[in-house]
């Protein structure tokens, strides 16, 4: 079966003043359908940049990223925004819920860009919140929810549009162990039971263990095993 995500010779650099800092260099990677991939590496290794590029949040200097056959590096800003809305679900470290919207409204947000009727949107949101076990909290505002519950709302928001891939940036970084277990359990379920392709950036080896596949990044290139400079992964 063809990989869902095909990354070829990806290079990305940032300019800091007159200096150019290479973050990713000629990186190639395939991610299979329903795979739960954890990206690990020290700070500044380029894992978040890679995640941004896979999710279409940023553009590479060179190389290509194909998601289900679509070369996203060739899409315009508007095209990319539309593609993200239809194909990517996001889970952030700090949940990034809109504080003035209820859990229900936060999950409904991505559906505004679809052609669904109000009734259909309600059904989708209820299903997504049921999936993360927060059906009874849909009228609560983020400040009325614990960190774990907020992250579960964020997961519901990420899956409500039924995207091709889910990207998660340190999804357990701000959670206690119990909440982190719950969130990781959910993500594992989304991959193994529902068949979503999940790409997660993490520093936490326990979180990475939940993933079916772990890739290590070191100075912008993929490494096969944890390096000495990155002892927490060993």
């Amino acid at each position, binding site marked *: 079966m063809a990989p869902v995500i095909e990354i070829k010779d990806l290079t990305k650099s*940032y300019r800091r003043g007159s200096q150019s800092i290479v*973050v990713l260099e000629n990186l190639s990677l395939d991610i299979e359908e329903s795979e739960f991939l954890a990206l690990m590496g020290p*700070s*500044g*290794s*380029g*894992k*978040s*940049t890679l995640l*941004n590029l896979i*999710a279409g*949040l*940023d553009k590479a200097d060179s190389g290509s990223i194909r998601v289900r056959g679509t070369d996203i590096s060739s899409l315009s800003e*508007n095209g990319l*925004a*539309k*593609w*993200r*809305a*239809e194909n990517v679900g*996001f889970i*952030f470290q700090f949940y*990034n819920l*809109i*504080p*003035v*919207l209820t859990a229900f*409204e936060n999950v*409904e*947000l*991505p559906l*505004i*860009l679809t052609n669904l009727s109000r009734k259909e949107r309600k059904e989708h949101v209820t299903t997504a919140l049921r999936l993360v076990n927060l059906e009874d909290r849909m009228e609560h505002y983020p400040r009325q929810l614990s960190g774990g519950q907020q992250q579960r709302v964020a997961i519901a928001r990420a899956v409500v549009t039924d995207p091709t891939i889910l990207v998660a*940036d340190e999804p357990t970084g701000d959670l206690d162990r119990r909440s982190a277990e719950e969130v990781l359990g959910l993500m594992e379920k989304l991959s193994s039971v529902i068949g979503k392709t999940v790409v997660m950036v993490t520093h936490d080896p326990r979180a990475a263990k939940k993933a079916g596949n772990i890739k290590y990044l070191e100075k912008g290139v993929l490494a096969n095993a944890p390096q000495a400079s990155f002892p927490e992964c060993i």
Partner: protein
Amino acid sequence: MLLKLLFRNAFRHRLRTALTVCGICVAILSFGLLRTVVSAWYAGVDASSATRLVTRNAISLVFPLPLSYKEKIRGVEGVKLVSLGNWFGGIYIEEKNFFANFAVDSKTYLDLYPEFVIPADQKLSFFKERKGCVVGRKLAKRFGWKIGDAIVLRGTIFPGNWEFVLRAIYRGRDKTIDENQFFFHWDYLNETMKKIQPRRADQVGFYMVGMASPDITAETTESIDKLFKNSFAETLTETEKVFQMGFISLSQTILTVIQLVSMVVIVIIMAVAANTMAMSVRERMSEYAVFKTLGFGGGYLAFLILGESMVITALGCGMGILLTYPAADAFARAVGEFFPVFNVAKETIYLDIAASVIIGVVAAVFPIWRAVSVPIASGLGRIG
């Protein structure tokens, strides 16, 4: 839901929003009041008729014209009616009680000014009474005068104490008409002057000329002035509007300053509102990045930010407009003698609304540009 979000965003920082709304309210109130002051200044011009001409001494308004000019003017082609009058300049009790008072040829004058609405019985009673006078509704209210009251004015230009009996009270046909004037019979003035200062008798301060049509004013003014060319009292004939503008031109600089200040007030509040919006958007940059992440384009962000800005300015503008009316009333009571007509015009309200729309849009422009142009990764605060 975006509309709901827009309103909720507007009130996330209640104190900041309240202060900004208060600032806009005060600015709109000041703008409205200043524009009303300017309108009040032009009230005489606005109320003037295109079919009325004013003929006065060519040297200056303070020099009189002979009474004999009346019949000559009446003979000019296009002239329908001629009235005359003198600025009396009388003082009621003390100088601070200032109001405009004129001796006029009553019948012709009131025919020329149909905008002064007087009940028929009162008008008749006024015409019959030699010492009768007619005053505006606001002036009567100001001094508590009633029909039949005796009023004494102390003459400044025409010496002595002048006794009058109030026989009629007029009201303006519309809000632009000055209801603070005092008129009495020119014959009463002239006959008295014949007795006490005969050399000042039969002297007229100005002629009011009623035209059959406004289309021939240029020819008529020329014809009237030509009649008295090289006489000992040459005339200057102007339309009533130009005549009134002559008074305003004396205070044109003050009016320009007032108009400028009203604009400056709007520019200042524009900066305050822009600062509020910039602060709000800067604080919510990560939220806008999330919106972009979810696929919302620049148009949606512009809608949210512009909408929030418009909600805040509309609130301030609404409050400012509501407060303009009682504030204008209080202002009119305080300085009524200087501004006999002090009404908040519809145009002022339209200008208020236009100003608040401009404030709302200008305040949102830079924050929209920032929110739309910041890369998502920067907005989310993570690069590495």
